[in-house]
């Protein structure tokens, strides 16, 4: 285009924006909303991951590879540490023993990291201690003593009332199970992050007190320059005993990003839906803009406007909406990200990362991607209107205005349309049968998109079906006019309805999914919390003396069940799977586990494991099959006896009976207790539990509290989706109002004629409100149908594929219908607005301007 045609283009854009301020602003807002949601989610997750990975790097260093036992109770033998250190391809081998201990003076457990200063100084400089002043710094790190992080020191000092600053020779007693270590605090860890509670000591001292006797916890490795980590890992992996696994540095990252991936992807898809709704609003705005200006464009065409300019102008107008919209969206997204990380933390309440407030750092490339996505959505919305504008025949348009129907050669026959719709429906059904791709339910998402397309495409047919009959009935004049308008202008009605279809479908589906999940969770909590009381110590075996007290005959409990947890690495790129060692009746596991299907008895001599639903989804196992577990340093074959529902551990869990675990040679160091008080001694039991919990710094709660807490976490984690639903409904209503106002404008001459025929302004207004209500009814009905379908896809396809858990579908009808009624009222309100705009003009003026 030459500069002259650019000037003309600019005049037209300016004129367009000036005359349709509201519609343009709303379109921009919708684009901004979609961009901001997507961008905010990206920023928040990026910040949380960066924060998480920085915290991890600060403690772990940045090794090229890590050799670790696949069973968290295992160890790396010393001979293997030496063999690794002797490998010329290894530049640095850093042995580490990390464990959790309970400190006598604190309520929480803390990480105790045993390290070898020679090697660790090079890989994890942030963990290097600083000598305290009290003993003149004459004691080395190799001797008896620990070094505490600033956060832990602060906590210890306030607890014991010691002066601030570097610690005195104050000692601590660290306990883990039956092992105790009383040792002086020799100094601090100046380079450790402020939010870490940890202790560092020489690896030998940690080993001597807490084990493992013949080895270390893991070995972090730096490879020599020029060594390919992948090839080196492959070579070594082949030589390792089955209980050990080597993982590459990027496995760590993959594992970390896998943690929050499904959640993040789902939120991003919601943002994309918001963006698409924005695109839809641009579509509605531009379509009506094209319709309104068809005479003007025809005139310009006659005057010599090149045909491609008629296409380009509408696209450029779309971009002119998209660019400021997307730019505003980036700003808004940044603001949202900052706000949300402050309010909810880095996981938006999802509970995946420790409670920290990561710093949101915007970067150019992702901002550019979201900016382009916003512009692209807007451009996409303008595409069809632009094409319609391009194909308008000039001479008729100049005389008669916009042609609602595309030229007959281009519109398919009704029969062909039906076949196409049936094919789309079939494709949607077929897609729900496909497995996840790379852990993402992409086919499911595509099926959702197809359902929405189907809903929109079905709008004209549904309109004819619902209102075709009405036409023959005796109706009041305004209602009759409304019905006829809808039937005679199907394109505008479709456009107006489709916004509602999409947004209401989205809302219904989300509400359905959340409600299904909540109902299922509620039921599941009943099943998994059979005991009235629970005690838990995170990661540390429960104190031996407390367990001994429970064994005494005068204990206020009639029954106690113990559980120990071991983490097993089945796949180095995924978070580890929990092995739950439980005291349960091998003959009747269903008394304790909520099985989803058949429970099989193991053949004689086989050990039975009952796997959780996520594990089943991840590994495609069915009851009766054999599962290989890296247990106690070897590969153990277990019989899969059944699948139980688990909403707590997204990455999978396996239950085996404590008796079986002992038979395999494992020792059960209980971390969790389920307690049944003696009848009549509930109060004494409660007092005992609270006293023990306070004394040992562990958790002790009633099942009711667990239940409340779980549900409140659930509600918090889905808070963001409500905001998205509200945004979608607003966009849908905007769409209805904009389209309705435009269609009234288009029919100004007709309305004026009615007015001239004696239709008063109030009747005219009522006709338009009726029309809006009828369109809203169609939109809501189709939206509801699509919403239930999409909700079913989310519940039965997307959730199992992304989060690996299943649940029965529950449509909360009362909520949904209330929402529909509210939307209908809001839609009528929007129509009133449109009606007022239309009827404010005196009839004569309308008649004149319509020429």
């Amino acid at each position, binding site marked *: 285009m030459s500069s002259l045609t650019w000037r003309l283009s600019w005049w037209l854009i300016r004129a367009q924006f000036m005359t349709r301020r509201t519609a343009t602003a709303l379109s921009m807002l919708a684009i901004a909303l979609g961009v901001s949601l997507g961008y905010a989610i990206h920023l928040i997750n990026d910040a949380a991951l960066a924060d998480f990975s920085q915290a991890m790097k600060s403690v772990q260093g940045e090794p090229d590879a890590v050799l670790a036992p696949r069973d968290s109770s295992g160890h790396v033998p010393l001979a293997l540490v030496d063999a690794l250190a002797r490998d010329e391809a290894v530049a640095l081998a850093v042995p580490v023993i990390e464990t959790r201990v309970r400190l006598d003076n604190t309520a929480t457990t803390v990480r105790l990291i045993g390290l070898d*200063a020679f*090697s660790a*100084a090079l890989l994890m400089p942030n963990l*290097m*201690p600083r000598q305290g002043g009290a003993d003149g*710094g004459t004691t080395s790190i190799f001797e008896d003593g620990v070094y505490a992080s600033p956060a832990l020191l602060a906590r210890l000092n306030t607890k014991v009332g010691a002066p601030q600053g570097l610690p005195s020779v104050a000692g601590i007693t660290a306990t883990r199970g039956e092992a105790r270590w009383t040792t002086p605090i020799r100094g601090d860890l100046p380079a450790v992050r402020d939010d870490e509670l940890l202790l560092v000591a020489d690896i030998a001292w940690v080993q001597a007190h807490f084990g493992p006797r013949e080895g270390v916890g893991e070995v972090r490795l730096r490879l020599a320059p020029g060594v390919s980590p992948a090839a080196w890992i492959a070579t070594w992996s082949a030589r390792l005993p089955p209980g050990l696994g080597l993982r590459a540095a990027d496995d760590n990252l993959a594992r970390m990003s896998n943690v929050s991936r499904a959640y993040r992807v789902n939120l991003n898809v919601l943002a994309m839906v918001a963006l698409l709704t924005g695109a839809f609003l641009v579509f509605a705005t531009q379509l009506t803009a094209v319709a309104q200006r068809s005479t003007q464009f025809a005139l310009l065409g006659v005057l010599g406007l090149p045909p491609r300019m008629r296409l380009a102008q509408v696209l450029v107008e779309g971009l002119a909406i998209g660019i400021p919209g997307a730019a505003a969206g980036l700003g808004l997204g940044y603001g949202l990200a900052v706000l949300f990380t402050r309010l909810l933390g880095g996981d938006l309440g999802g509970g995946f990362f420790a409670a920290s407030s990561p710093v949101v750092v915007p970067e150019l490339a992702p901002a550019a991607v979201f900016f382009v996505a916003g512009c692209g959505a807007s451009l996409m919305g303008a595409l069809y209107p632009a094409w319609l504008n391009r194909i308008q025949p000039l001479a008729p348009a100049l005389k008669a205005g916009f042609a609602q129907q595309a030229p007959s050669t281009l519109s398919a026959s009704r029969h062909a349309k039906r076949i196409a719709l049936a094919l789309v429906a079939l494709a949607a059904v077929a897609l729900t049968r496909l497995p996840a791709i790379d852990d993402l339910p992409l086919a499911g998402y595509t099926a959702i998109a197809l359902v929405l397309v189907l809903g929109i495409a079905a709008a004209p047919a549904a309109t004819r079906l619902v209102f075709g009959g009405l036409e023959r009935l005796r109706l009041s004049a305004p209602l009759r006019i409304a019905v006829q308008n809808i039937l005679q202008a199907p394109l505008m009605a479709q456009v107006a309805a489709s916004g509602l279809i999409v947004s209401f479908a989205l809302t219904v589906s989300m509400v359905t999914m959340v409600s299904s999940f909540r109902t299922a969770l509620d039921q599941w909590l009943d099943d998994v919390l059979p005991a009235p009381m629970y005690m838990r110590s995170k990661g540390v075996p429960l104190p031996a003396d407390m367990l001994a007290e429970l064994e005494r005959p005068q204990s206020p409990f009639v029954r106690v069940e113990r559980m120990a947890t071991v983490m097993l690495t089945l796949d180095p790129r995924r978070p580890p799977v929990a092995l739950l060692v439980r005291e349960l009746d091998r003959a009747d596991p269903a008394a304790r586990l909520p099985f989803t299907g058949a429970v099989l008895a193991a053949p004689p001599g086989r050990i039975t494991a009952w796997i959780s639903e996520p594990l089943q989804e991840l590994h495609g196992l069915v009851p009766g099959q054999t599962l290989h577990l890296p247990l106690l340093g070897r590969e153990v074959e277990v019989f899969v006896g059944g699948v139980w529902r688990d909403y707590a551990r997204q990455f999978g869990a396996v239950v085996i009976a404590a008796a079986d675990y002992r038979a395999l040679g494992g020792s059960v160091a209980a971390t969790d207790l389920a307690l049944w008080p003696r009848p009549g001694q509930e109060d004494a039991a409660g007092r005992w539990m609270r006293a023990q919990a306070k004394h040992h710094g562990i958790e002790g709660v009633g099942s009711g509290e667990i239940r409340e807490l779980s549900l409140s976490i659930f509600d918090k984690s889905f808070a963001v989706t409500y905001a998205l639903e509200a945004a979608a409904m607003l966009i849908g209503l905007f769409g209805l109002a904009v389209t309705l106002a435009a269609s009234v404008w288009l029919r100004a001459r007709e309305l004026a004629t009615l007015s001239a025929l004696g239709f008063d302004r109030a009747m005219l207004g009522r006709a338009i409100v009726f029309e809006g209500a009828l369109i809203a009814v169609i939109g809501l009905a189709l939206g509801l149908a699509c919403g239930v379908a999409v909700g079913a896809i989310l519940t039965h396809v997307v959730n199992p594929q992304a989060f690996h858990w299943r649940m029965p579908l529950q449509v909360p009808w009362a909520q949904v219908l209330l929402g529909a009624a509210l939307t209908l009222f809001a839609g009528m309100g929007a129509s009133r607005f449109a009606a007022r705009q239309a009827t404010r003009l005196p009839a004569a003026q309308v008649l004149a301007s319509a020429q």
Partner: protein
Amino acid sequence: MQRRSFLLTPLLLPALATARDAPRHAVASRATRLSFPRDHGAHPEFRTEWWYVTGALDVPGGGMGFQLTFFRSRPGIAEELDSPIAASQILFAHAALTRPGQRLLHAERAARANLGAGFSTTDCDVHVGAWSMRRGGAGADEQFRLVAHDAAFAFDLRLTPTQPLLLQGEHGWSQKGPRPELASHYVSWPQLRVGGRLVVEGKTQEATGRAWFDHEWSSEVLAAGAVGWDWIGINLDDGGALMAFRIRDAGGNTLYAHASLRDADGRLTRFGAGEVAFTPIRRWTSPRNGAQYPVQMEIRVGPQRIETTPVADDQEISARRPLPVSYWEGLVAIRGTLAGRGYLELTGYAGALRL
């Protein structure tokens, strides 16, 4: 980098520099009779031990000097701890390469025994990470294998004896000061034939040459007032071997000295403190710490008078382990009444040396 040394140094210093509790360290005894290969192995009951190989390599483009040293230290800590990885025995290794006229290349490693490092008590077999020094074979097949590698250089050398072992002092009991407790067990093996591979800055080349092996263990060697020593070991061109050292005080005066010369026919002559003199001729000043090393020296041993000429002036080693310490150790050409190539070690010029 800055932080790492600030953090690590104070941690190691107390452990290695102060003999606080003075655990039951063995004392070098005049009565001990050494037997081999057992005494090529480690003596963990002593405080300090080293296996020291220095040598000259003949490669295209001129002679190079190399050294590989393993130190074993028993700092006397964590001795009662019931753990196989207690830091009661710590190993350090230094490797260096001298190229004529260029700055010396240097690398070091450290680890505790059983956790990335180890030693044998039955023969010379010591390693820190992938660096190792190991003796094997018997008779004509007897050999040392030396392996060390770093980013800038690497070598894999085989050392074959051409002469018998040389026990320094009295049957390998070598006095280091006026008091008899100030002594070490000291075994040398001069005139080892070198063959193997050398990698410098990515280029691999075959290397041949002559090396000198020292193995010394003790619990206390430096007398009060001693700040360091000058030591030289020379493989003479005619097949003979000369070793000489002196212990200095802060004023540069000799506190103790000793030398031994084995001529090409195997006749061994020992020289007492009065027969050994070190006289600086030219000093080189380190641009890094200002220490002035007498790199060119006149050394008189009995009737012999020789003069050292360094192949490169800057053969200063700045090691972080076991302690942050700088000293000069490098290849020198020998002229005078005897001719050959030797390694000169000058310690205590950049602050007093502590073992």
